[in-house]
């Protein structure tokens, strides 16, 4: 079976498996959120400071909160079937439009964080494995342990103190300079400089995890018989590491990276809040505080789909990297 057909088969299987999962997620999300105390009307009333029974009832009617929960659920599903995520009275717009505004920011942040995590993590792990037990390995082990044990947002705040406040090299928040009208390279640098700190603080924990994992699985691969075969062919240590050891060692790392995608989304909530990054994480946080369930449901649904897509991609990468994975 060629590589291509194998990958296609993996794609079909993963997609079929995703459909029932999505249904369960929809039901769970909807009913779990109803368990939270209070609703959007109460929060708004609380913010305004004054509210009569009548105005509360009017608000509930407007938000569609006055009908029984099961009817609300039917209405929600009905909306979904018409490709609508509902209306957010708070933002005064359709939820899908609101999410569409915030999604690119989040995807960008998470994508860059994942690239950082994998790139830097695998690099550090490779270095540690090549110098195992010697000084570079010891130093990097301590560093990765620190990254692993200190919360990302705290390191984020410390980096803001160092790079933004003290050194003034990088901006401390937002995704671009507000009001500036840059173009070309200046625009690009503006965006990149805003991205570095949040992406780095989001990825630090994962850099540590992937570094340790790469180190361990490279050490395991190095002892395998096929490494000795490669040496007997006359390959240099470098060629052995990159062509024979690393590829085998990456298999567990890709599995973990796929599983971590959901964790990354969770981490994005905190990091987006710390760096006032206009993404889904911050939107989710705000919607929870405001009991804006339509927005929250939309984000949860989208996150679930994103996680499932990430799983499919992981499966595909696995099938591509490891020919032994048979797709049934």
């Amino acid at each position, binding site marked *: 079976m060629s590589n291509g057909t194998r990958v296609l088969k993996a794609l079909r299987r993963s997609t079929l498996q995703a459909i029932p999962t999505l249904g369960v997620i929809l039901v769970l999300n909807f009913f779990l959120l109803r368990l939270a105390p209070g609703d959007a009307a109460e929060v708004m009333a609380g913010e305004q400071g004054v509210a009569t029974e009548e105005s509360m009832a009017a608000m509930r009617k407007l938000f569609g909160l006055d009908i029984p929960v099961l009817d609300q659920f039917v209405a929600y599903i009905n909306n979904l079937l018409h490709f609508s995520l509902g209306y957010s009275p708070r933002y005064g717009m359709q939820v899908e439009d609101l999410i569409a505004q915030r999604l690119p920011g989040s995807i960008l942040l998470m994508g860059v964080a994942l690239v950082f995590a994998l790139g830097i993590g695998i690099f550090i792990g490779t270095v540690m494995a090549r110098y195992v037990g010697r000084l570079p390995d010891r130093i990097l082990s301590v560093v990765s342990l620190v990254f692993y044990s200190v919360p990302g947002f705290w390191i984020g705040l410390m980096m803001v103190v160092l790079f933004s406040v003290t050194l003034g090299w990088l901006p401390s928040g937002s995704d671009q300079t507000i009001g500036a009208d840059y173009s070309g390279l200046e625009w690009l640098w503006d965006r990149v400089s805003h991205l570095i700190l949040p992406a780095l603080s989001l990825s630090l924990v994962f850099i540590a995890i992937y570094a340790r994992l790469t180190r361990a699985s490279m050490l395991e691969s190095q002892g395998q018989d*096929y490494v000795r075969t490669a040496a007997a*062919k006359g390959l240099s240590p470098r060629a052995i590491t990159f062509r024979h050891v690393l590829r085998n060692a990456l298999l567990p790392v890709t599995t973990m990276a796929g599983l971590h995608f959901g964790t990354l989304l969770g981490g994005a909530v905190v990091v987006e809040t710390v760096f006032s990054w206009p993404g889904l994480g911050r939107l989710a946080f705000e919607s929870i505080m405001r009991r804006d369930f339509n927005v929250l449901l939309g984000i949860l649904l989208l996150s679930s789909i994103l996680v499932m897509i990430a799983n499919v991609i992981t499966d595909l990468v696995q099938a591509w990297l490891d020919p032994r994975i048979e797709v049934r």
Partner: protein
Amino acid sequence: MATTLLEVENLTVRFPRLAAVQDLSFSVGVGETLAIVGESGSGKSITALALMRLVPPPGRITGGSIRFDGRELTALPDAAMRKVRGAEIAMIFQEPMTSLNPVLTIGRQIGETVRLHEGVSRRIARARAIELLDLVRIPEPHRRVDDYPHQLSGGMRQRVMIAMAVICRPKLLIADEPTTALDVTIQAQVLALLDNLRRELSMGLLLITHDLGIVGQWADRVVVMYASRKVEEGSPDAILDAPWHPYTQGLMAASPRHAGDLHYRRTPLVEIPGSITSAFGETGCPFVPRCALAEARCREVVPPPLSLGDHLVACVRHDPFKEAADVALAG
């Protein structure tokens, strides 16, 4: 004997707590098959790795010389040694299941050697790989070249290993227990293939095995190793029919013979008592703890090798000259 291709003298390989190979000397001629026989732990596989300078750390070659085709391998810089490996000395390992990289196609793994040493393009390497698959008699080489190792049987994988080893036409092929992991019918095929290739490519073949059945049929000369030392060397006929060293004699007695009592129902299969680990820390002959004929003088010094013609033995009880003289007198 033909011109000497490989000359090993007093080779010693040490690990921190023990010597894996001590004072080992032997030679392989151009186009010759030398078998090294010995039980597990006798140092034969480490000898093979030492010839490639691939002794796994912390072990290292601490003495002796390896002269190959006019060069001293122990003194070669690492980069020059890498040019020897795969191109001039190639090696086949015991476990075809694990000795191939599971995530690369066999075509790439076979072609890798020739790309490295001859710098040919990927396309030519692939064509050469197909050619070699055909040479080691793998059916449909055009299709098989894109297979992954897990899609092949054990015998086919060992053929792939052989193809990988001989693609650069090495002068010496080291086969470390090439058939141990294979079943008997496949064993004979693989050995016949190795023998054919040896003749076609006029390679020297160093066959490392613990299977005495193989030795008589395929080897030109035999070295018997015990506990890191050579105890006997000679032609297969001499070793198999009239061994001199008590260890070799024990090995022969312990080999199942199909004549007579097939399943050893009436008489037990002879065994050599004890195990090779008893040689550890022994000052004299390493075989003393298991030797029925051991005397006090055996414990004093390591017996020096004595030879008559091309038959050599390291045992103080054995003086080939005296025995030859006795035979001559009696006759």
